[in-house]
């Protein structure tokens, strides 16, 4: 009897899902504090990249007292990339469900911000490439060259997405 009462009060899964998706949709009007899909995407990317590659470099540096040839970074790198890809895919599916209209749409403000962010990321990447060229010239071990390039990609990605966040906030 009691369980039947509780069952009647419990909303159906479909209805719960509809309510959840409605609540996640951005408001029709606001004072500009809400983020666009692309702004949320940039924030998510920064967090995901920092968490996964932060852990990767932490583990790598923790084992730096070993001989260079013994540093097994390749399996760790593959695992990190798989985890990052999974996090990015899941988080972007959630973001796209929240704002389906914005997910595949770049307006002129998004494009301008994206171009500026790409410029910043490009400059950062160029600096890292110069550093790697120097490492190559002094015949550093492959593990250092590979991981310097990787660190450069991570820093340039974070710099680009951070630029996006700053520009979105300044113009909202």
């Amino acid at each position: 009897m009691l369980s039947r009462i509780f069952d009647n009060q419990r909303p159906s899964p479909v209805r719960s899902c509809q309510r959840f998706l409605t609540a996640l949709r951005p408001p029709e009007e606001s004072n500009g504090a809400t983020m666009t899909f692309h702004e949320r995407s940039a924030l998510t990317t920064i967090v995901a990249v920092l968490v996964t590659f932060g852990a990767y470099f932490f583990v790598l540096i923790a084992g730096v007292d070993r001989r260079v040839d013994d540093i097994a970074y390749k399996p760790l790198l593959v695992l990190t990339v798989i985890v990052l890809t999974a996090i990015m895919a899941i988080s972007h599916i959630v973001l796209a469900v929240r704002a389906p209209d914005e997910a595949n749409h770049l307006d002129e403000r998004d494009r301008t911000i994206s171009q500026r962010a790409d410029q910043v990321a490009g400059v950062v990447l160029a600096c890292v490439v110069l550093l790697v060229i120097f490492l190559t010239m002094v015949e550093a071990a492959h593990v250092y060259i590979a991981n310097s390039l990787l660190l450069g990609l991570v820093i340039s990605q974070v710099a680009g997405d951070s630029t996006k966040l700053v520009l979105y906030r300044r113009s909202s």
Partner: protein
Amino acid sequence: MAKPTKVTNRIGELRRDAGEVSQGELATAIGVTRQTLNAIERGKYSPSLEVAFRIARFFDVGLDDVFTYRDDG
């Protein structure tokens, strides 16, 4: 990105005059996100000429009736 702009606009007023058109409705009609329209309306972002014309055309008014350039010298 936040272009320091001397351009002011009457988009909010025109939306109210047109029967409480929401930011979302206007944004969809002119092909930008609601957040971008909000930024334009608050003077934080200067739209392209194309978007400015689309806004004016939506309200069926001239560009000068929507945007004003304040040249204080």
